[in-house]
């Protein structure tokens, strides 16, 4: 991670909320405009520290399209004091932003390969920018697929955009939910049950997979991909830990020899796969 272009990485810059979309009962997406100067470029997979004034800071993945840096997009789930304050923000409100921080999805480097995005629940948010990036250059990739799992049909994030990616943007999209009421005509089952189908007829050695979701889901999905013949150095996961300073100083997000904020959040599976199964860390 290079933060040299950020004057003082500990100093939040002021942003104003331009728009808010209520995605789910406890999840909101907001677009932000900078007040203190031009927008900062970011890469898909990076995160910002969002500061709800008077409440605190939280690390939130950037969900916007890196090609449109002037429109900073963040999706937040209300799970704690800070995220509750962030999801309460409305158009016109102000907040502080530090970042962007962390490693990114290596989208460009996968050109010529089958780009497989696997998202679980809110894990679609950190992948959204990478999906936009791959679809903007769709013909440079052999295939672009999205496998998206959610708890139920009512918990599907970015519903209309996911449909649009499948219908108009040349992506092969599969959505599956863990449980559904009768009447749901889509797939029911965890994402791993769809892997063989989505890769059917493909050269598995030519697949590059970006996975984001709950850690256990990423662990099982990566294991299954390896079993299917996807190379371990062509699988990436996005980790989440308790990020505080975002610069690798405070040590809160230490994960084995790495700091998730500085060395991650995006890690290549062959470098961290064993660690994913270690309960001690």
């Amino acid at each position, binding site marked *: 991670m290079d933060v040299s272009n950020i004057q003082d990485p500990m100093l939040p810059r002021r942003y104003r909320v331009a728009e808010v979309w209520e995605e789910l009962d406890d999840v909101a997406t907001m677009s932000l405009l900078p007040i203190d100067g031009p927008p900062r470029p970011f890469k898909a997979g990076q995160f910002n520290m969002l500061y709800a004034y008077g409440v605190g800071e939280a690390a939130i993945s950037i969900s916007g399209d890196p090609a449109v840096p002037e429109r900073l997009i963040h999706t937040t789930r209300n799970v704690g004091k800070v995220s509750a304050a962030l999801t309460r923000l409305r158009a016109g409100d102000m907040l502080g932003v530090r970042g962007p921080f962390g490693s990114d999805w290596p989208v460009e480097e996968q050109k010529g390969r089958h780009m497989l995005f696997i998202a679980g629940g809110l894990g679609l948010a950190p992948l959204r920018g990478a999906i936009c990036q791959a679809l903007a250059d769709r013909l440079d990739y052999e295939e672009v697929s999205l496998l998206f799992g*959610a708890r139920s049909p009512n918990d599907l994030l970015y519903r209309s955009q996911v449909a649009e990616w499948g219908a108009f943007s040349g992506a092969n999209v599969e959505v599956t939910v863990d449980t559904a009421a009768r009447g749901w005509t889509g797939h029911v089952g965890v994402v791993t*049950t769809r892997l063989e189908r989505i890769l059917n007829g493909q050269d598995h050695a030519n697949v590059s997979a970006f996975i984001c979701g709950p850690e256990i889901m990423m662990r*099982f999905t990566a294991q299954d991909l390896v079993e299917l013949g996807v190379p371990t150095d062509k699988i990436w996961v996005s980790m989440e830990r308790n990020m505080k300073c975002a610069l690798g100083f405070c040590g809160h997000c230490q994960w084995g020899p790495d700091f998730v904020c500085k060395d991650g959040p995006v890690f290549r599976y062959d470098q961290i796969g064993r660690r994913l199964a270690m309960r001690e860390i």
Partner: protein
Amino acid sequence: MEIHGIKDILSGHPVFKDFDEETLDLLSGCGRNEHFKKNTLLYAEGDEADKVYIIRKGDVAIEIAAPGRPSIVVESLHAGDIAGWSWMVPPYRSSADARAMTEVSAVSLDANCMRGKCDEHPALGYQMFKTWLPHLTKRVRAQRLQLLDLYGTG
């Protein structure tokens, strides 16, 4: 319309692809083509598990009914999937409902016939368990993940 014999259908399925001609002939004798209209049941929880279905076309919902609430779909099966694993395990009773979500075409294999052939030809029985168990294991593993309700808080 393309007509496929039961043996052709079985030999093209991943579970049976390694079975030799003779074995496929034996098993084909237990099979027949079946069609289900949308919303009809292939089998219901507690039914005798007298058939196993290889879905050829359409989608099937595996449902669990609970008193006082609508049935919950816990798994969906699609072309190529197998419905009705209980035929292999005593007491040979279905453990959930299987409902056609769309028009469904399937090959059904008669469970009594299959079990009889496995008893008569132990090598076939062994091969059957050896090739079917990995599929069952995968499904158990997937359902363990499902039980964790991963996305509830993640």
